[in-house]
């Protein structure tokens, strides 16, 4: 289609639905209108257009994929590289109940402009167009898919909510950001207040900053990249406007010039110049080359012996940890060394001190064990919490590692120990009780310790690290999934975009990995290796997140090439279980760590996740989390009010002062 210079489609997305109440009366019924949303630049005015498809749902096509085998695709499997504005006929198959009546859409593309008038009244009822200049706010909500609610400045006009069943809402908002300033409403973070680009030009930097003041830190922590990219687009808008000057209503902008300028003040940025659409997108940070790393040999008994003084204190712990990180432990040493790695034994304790500790801990253990052992049947009948814990533990003990010789068979003592330790842990931490997955964490510890008391205390230490994962709200899981998202986005924006396009950006498929630290993904002995490596705390904190990145890095090609949808990604990831090579996974995880560490313009949020700069945070300053001075910018930190003078987003979740430009500009993203 030849582009009309005065009528240019900036963005187009099909599979956008209106769920309209049909007002049928008796039963609440929904009318499902499928259509497309477009951003159109019409003589310099940017319009948002929604148009229903000509035949939103053709009943003759419904659920009859057999008639046309090519017409059925599973929901969410559409090729990633299919342009959002692809004009080819697009059929989709929704596997979900609420969409089952709309399995196959016959789409005839509406032509621009007046062509729509030929459509039936019923369809046109749902079409609407408004100027971005008239837009007051966009509210973004998620309900499996995203949906957007537009509010116009003219409050009397209400528009139907648009449901992006086939994704594309983020891309739509990105496109919208290029023509208008979107800022989060202070009252409701899901609500984006809209100012048009022209207005943005007249806005001072204070406004930009003000925008960033609202929940910036909070937002950054939650999703630094969305936040920062959004922030950056405002700056590019500003710069565009500044450069454009009198050249009004013309979307041709000087990309090279802007790129040069941005590149100059923000080194390391790659600016993707999209000539045709007339704006630039900051795509990613240059991470540099991923270094080659080698794994080492497991720590030997001789090496271990060399690291102890005559009284049994452990010497040169950093070196020891380094060796263990590189190669793990030979199996014979695990029973001893794990107690140190887990923090049950202090590294600087003497043999005598450890013996005393063990005596005290043994007493403590049996005191707690006696507590549940001495509960009578009658008491138990009146203690539902304890009863529930007991019942869950019994069920899980019976299905934990039963193929392992330590737990196989019917009357294996390993089973009794597993049970008793978990019950005692309930008494130790009654608030947490027993949560499924804990037996998976205990099993290798007991296997290695071959001792009830020591396994228990090692388990207590391990659970200290894992506690949040199992708590009522599973906050640990949520935090980790968000952190993992940040890392994946940094490492490969394209893959991240693919995951998001398949509704998989929440990374549910990593749930089991994170909850029980790959216990179900690796062979039993590989789990032992992975865990001891993780416990060294090297080469950075949260190594397990980089392990996730490492595994996904090896699978992303297949996932994208095979065009896996939400279901297939989950299936594929679940089926990686027992097929992973732990040394290869660890090698790549370390390489990724070094690669990220070597990056000069690392988002601060990522440094925080990996613990690269924990020593630089100034307590008490709400900005400190994102303003810790970096080696590359030795300029003194301006006070918060100084920041009002100028704010630039650098696109990477990073607040950073620049000494390179004399006018005291802060980089706010």
């Amino acid at each position, binding site marked *: 289609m030849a582009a009309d210079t005065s009528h240019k489609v900036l963005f187009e997305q099909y599979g956008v639905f209106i*769920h309209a109440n*049909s007002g049928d009366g008796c*039963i*609440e*019924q*929904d*009318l*499902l209108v499928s259509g497309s949303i477009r951003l159109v630049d019409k003589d310099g005015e940017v319009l948002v257009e929604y148009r229903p498809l000509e*035949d939103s*749902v053709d*009943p003759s096509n*419904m*659920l*009859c994929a*057999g008639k046309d*085998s*090519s017409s*059925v695709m*599973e929901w969410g499997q559409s090729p990633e590289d299919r342009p959002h504005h692809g004009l080819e006929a697009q059929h989709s*198959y929704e*596997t*979900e*109940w*609420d*969409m*089952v*009546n*709309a399995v196959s859409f016959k789409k005839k593309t509406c032509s621009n402009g007046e062509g729509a008038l030929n459509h039936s009244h*019923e369809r046109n009822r749902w079409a609407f167009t408004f100027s971005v200049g008239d837009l007051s706010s966009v509210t973004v909500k*998620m*309900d*499996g898919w995203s949906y957007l609610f537009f509010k116009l400045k003219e409050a009397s006009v209400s528009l139907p909510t648009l449901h992006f069943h086939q994704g594309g809402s983020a891309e739509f908002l990105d496109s919208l950001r290029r023509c208008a300033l979107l800022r989060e409403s202070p009252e409701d973070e*899901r609500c984006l207040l809209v100012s048009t680009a022209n207005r943005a030009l007249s806005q001072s930097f204070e406004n930009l900053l003000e925008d960033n003041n609202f929940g910036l830190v909070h937002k950054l922590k*939650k*999703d630094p990249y*969305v936040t920062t990219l959004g922030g950056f687009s405002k700056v590019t808008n500003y710069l565009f406007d500044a450069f454009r000057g009198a050249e009004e209503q013309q979307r041709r902008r000087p990309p090279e010039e802007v790129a040069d300028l941005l590149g100059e003040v923000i080194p390391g940025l790659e600016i993707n110049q999209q000539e045709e659409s007339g704006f630039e997108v900051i795509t990613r940070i240059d991470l540099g080359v991923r270094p080659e790393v080698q794994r080492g040999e497991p720590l030997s008994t001789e090496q271990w012996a060399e690291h102890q003084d005559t009284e049994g204190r452990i010497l040169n712990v950093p070196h020891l940890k380094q060796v263990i990180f590189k190669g793990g432990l030979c199996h014979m040493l695990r029973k001893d060394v794990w107690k140190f790695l887990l923090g049950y034994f202090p590294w600087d304790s003497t043999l005598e001190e450890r013996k005393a500790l063990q005596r005290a801990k043994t007493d403590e253990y049996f005191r707690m064990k006696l507590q549940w052992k001495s509960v009578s049947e009658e008491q138990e009948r009146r203690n539902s919490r304890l009863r529930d814990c007991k*019942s*869950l533990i019994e*069920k*899980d003990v019976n*299905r*934990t590692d*039963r*193929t392992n010789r330590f737990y196989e068979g019917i009357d294996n003592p390993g089973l009794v120990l597993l049970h008793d330790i978990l019950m005692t842990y309930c008494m130790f931490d009654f608030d947490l009780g027993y*949560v*499924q997955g804990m037996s998976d964490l205990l099993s290798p510890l007991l296997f290695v310790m071959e001792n009830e008391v020591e396994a228990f205390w090692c388990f207590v230490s391990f659970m200290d690290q894992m506690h949040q994962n199992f708590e009522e*709200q*599973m906050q640990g*899981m*949520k935090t980790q*999934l*968000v952190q993992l998202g940040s890392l994946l986005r940094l490492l490969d924006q394209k893959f991240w975009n693919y995951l998001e396009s398949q509704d998989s*950006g*929440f990374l*549910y498929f990593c*749930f*089991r990995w994170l909850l*029980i630290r790959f216990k179900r993904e690796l062979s039993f002995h590989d789990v032992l290796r992975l865990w001891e490596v993780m416990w060294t705390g090297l080469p950075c904190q949260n190594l397990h997140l980089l392990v996730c990145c490492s595994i996904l890095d090896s699978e992303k090609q297949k996932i994208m090439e095979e065009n896996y949808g939400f*279901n297939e990604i989950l299936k594929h990831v*679940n089926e990686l279980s027992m097929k992973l090579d732990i040394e290869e996974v660890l090698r790549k995880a370390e390489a990724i760590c070094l690669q990220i560490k070597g990056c000069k313009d690392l988002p601060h949020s990522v440094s925080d996740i990996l613990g690269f700069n924990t020593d630089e945070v100034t307590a008490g300053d709400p900005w400190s989390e994102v303003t810790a001075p970096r080696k590359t910018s030795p300029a003194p930190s301006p006070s918060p009010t100084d920041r009002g003078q100028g704010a630039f987003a650098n696109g990477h979740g990073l607040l950073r002062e620049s000494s390179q430009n004399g006018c005291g500009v802060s980089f706010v993203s």
Partner: protein
Amino acid sequence: MAKTYDYLFKLLLIGDSGVGKTCLLFRFSEDAFNTTFISTIGIDFKIRTIELDGKKIKLQIWDTAGQERFRTITTAYYRGAMGIMLVYDITNEKSFDNIKNWIRNIEEHASSDVERMILGNKCDMNDKRQVSRERGEKLAIDYGIKFLETSAKSSINVEESFFTLGRDIMTRLNRKMNDNNPPGGGGQVKITESRSKKNNFFRCTLL
């Protein structure tokens, strides 16, 4: 590429931990019983294509973790389920009592017109039975839901259950299509209560 099915139904197995959801699924999808049990962490699904009235139905059956704690993640999968199997263990009174809670969960998180079915599993273990068949039937009648006692181990009623649920979904679907496809009509399709009422902790972190 030739398509291998005419319809795709998404089913969900829910019920207390250890009632045998995974075993039922394994029996149905692989026709086998694995005595090396393993608890379900997170979520998984299996596929089996069946034939009903000459139509090939691909059943995508989701298996969930039973423990209360995991509901934040498992309820995210309720949405979009067309059929839900509520499973209890006939040798475990508590799992039967909890069926009410699971039904409430469905009402909160699943589509209101989802097809449901109650299964009393482990019916091969009659000597350890705590819940009589009559009580199971009565509960099912109270809720207007179909009921079967099953045994994944002895392969009793497993095929029947999934076929029954599949058929019920098919019936509902046909009824809807007829309702919505009046002769000569060509308008839009009406969907009863198509929006779900789910909330999802994990999903509110973006934007």
